[in-house]
């Protein structure tokens, strides 16, 4: 247990300029090689927490450490080599092809002023093949389905060669098949010793795939632990303000069925 955690968040507090208090005293540690689910109702501070971790938002107080080193004094270029990010959706591509977008993931490592190197190209080509999007490499983003787009963004984060990947609602627009497909994709990355923190609303799916889950409500941490132990009917009632039935199927997987709203929820 003396091992230095890959990610450690210490007493993180974040208030926005408009006094909105998004994260209150959040502390947790993650070891490497885990798929971690970040679960909580809309507006509970999941996205803010992620933006604080990858230094897009400045934090109000507290500290964030990667491999025991604080990221606060680091430049954003240094942080980009440690932490990668998969956004919930991608903006207009302006005619960039899939290959060019994935290649942008190599930006933190580029030395040349003009072209990438052969090595960058090999890494990108391998990633495209790994995520099964090599055949799409010359298409522009607008020609792809949502699921394919998501895989492109994951590939882009992958070639960033980071230790920690933050994924924000990767499956929100996807059908069941693509959802599984994306989660399998992330699972495969974790097996290569990457750590992935994924924010997601589908609790059953999180319980199925995650090694660890972090439950948040109103900017505070409610529980951290093995999803099969943490996710209970009373927890869901507390966090979401709904009655739900939590059971296990014949393979021992948890599934959650929402029943009815009680109170005004945890927002």
């Amino acid at each position, binding site marked *: 247990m003396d091992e230095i955690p890959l990610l450690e968040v210490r007493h993180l507090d974040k208030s926005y300029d408009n006094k909105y208090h998004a994260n209150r005293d959040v502390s947790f540690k993650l070891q490497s090689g885990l798929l971690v689910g970040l679960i909580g109702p809309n507006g509970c501070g999941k996205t803010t927490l992620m*933006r604080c971790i*990858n*230094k*897009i938002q400045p934090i109000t107080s507290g500290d964030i450490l990667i491999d025991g080193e604080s990221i606060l004094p680091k*430049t*954003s*270029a*240094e*942080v*980009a*080599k440690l*932490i*990668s*990010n998969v*956004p919930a959706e*991608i*903006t*207009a*591509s*302006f*005619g*960039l*092809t899939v*290959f*060019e*977008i994935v290649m*942008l*993931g190599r*930006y*933190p490592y*580029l030395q040349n*002023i*003009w*072209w*990438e*190197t*052969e090595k*960058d*190209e090999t890494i*990108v*080509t391998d990633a495209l093949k790994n995520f099964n999007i090599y055949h799409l*490499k010359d298409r*522009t*983003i*607008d020609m792809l389905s949502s699921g394919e787009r998501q895989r492109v963004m994951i590939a882009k984060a992958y070639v*960033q060669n980071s230790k920690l990947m933050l994924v924000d609602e990767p499956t929100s627009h996807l059908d069941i098949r693509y959802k599984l497909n994306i989660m399998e994709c992330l699972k495969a990355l974790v097996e290569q010793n990457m750590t992935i923190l994924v924010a997601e609303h589908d609790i059953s799916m999180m319980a199925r795939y995650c090694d660890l889950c972090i439950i948040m409500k109103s900017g505070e941490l409610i529980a951290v632990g093995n999803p099969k132990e943490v996710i209970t009917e009373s927890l869901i009632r507390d966090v979401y303000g709904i009655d739900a039935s939590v059971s296990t199927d014949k393979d021992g997987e948890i599934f959650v069925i929402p029943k009815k709203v009680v109170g005004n929820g945890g927002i």
Partner: protein
Amino acid sequence: MISDNIFRFKQLITKKNNSYIKKKKRRSTFVFVIGLVFLFTIFVVSLCIGSSVILSPIDVLSNLLSAMEKNGEDMTTIEVAINLRLPRALSAMGVGIGLSVAGVAYQAIIRNPLVDSYILGVSSGAGTFAIGSIAYGFTFFGLISSNSPFAVAIFAIIGGLLAFFLTIILAQRSGSTTTSYVLSGVIVGLVFSTIQTIMIIFARDEALNAVLWLFGSFAQVTKLETICILIPVVILTTVIMCFSKELNLVLLGERESQQMGLNVKRFNTVILIFASVLTSFCIAFVGIVGLVGLIIPHFCRMLFGGDHRIVIPASIVFGGSLMMISDLLTTMIIPGLELPVGAITILIGAPVFACLLFKRGKFYNG
């Protein structure tokens, strides 16, 4: 043994052909070289054709250097003609390049295909101040002599940058989203163009000169002014081009590119200032030439893809060419009458653009 070698050889060939970066390098060199040849051809043609004499390309090429060296004394007719046409051709090329590259930068930073120096108010600001100087001899409270040959240009630059900063302040105060940039630019531009219209209405005698300035013309450009256009164009275009990779990155959005290690706020502000200074210098000496900054970047994106390492070199060669062709046409369409160049760029640019939009318009549904 032999089959082994053949296999290795095959591998070598296929590897070479499949290398994406090499393919791209070849493609961008190809586009740039073809474009340069095209640009140079049009440059020579525009030195050949003029109102006085029509020269052969051989005459032009053999007399070009001697015409540039001599300064007024004992020049042959050919050298006189070249000497008269050279500033005009070079300034047209420079303005075409400058406006196109500035347009590429604006569109990438604001991530909106609609944006150019018109939309951001820069042109209206420059126009308003220039008309103040042309029609009313406005001197900025005596700071700049209205007799100075550079008065109009200096006013145009001040006006352009003023409008630009108003737009940026307004946009950044309202969330610096794509929409807020466009809306701020439209509002600032509208105010300036209204002032402009009011000034033209009351200008009476000078009204025609003012309106002509608004459409742009290369007819009166002097050697000194050409140099004043070319120097900022060469410097700022090179600087913007060096940031092609970053311009690709910002297309992903502000948060994403910051997460990738780019200081987005600083980068965006610096590039927007460069693009606006570039635009202001271009239109200061020749007047507002419309649509080039909007059409050329799109034209290049639709033909060669979105990577700025191809889009910017392509915009340089095609922007310069389009402007020289337009300037040539100003004197050729109606003999004895010179049309404003801004009208020509719109008249040839718009149909070509409409055709391309028709075929490749879906490109921007991202």
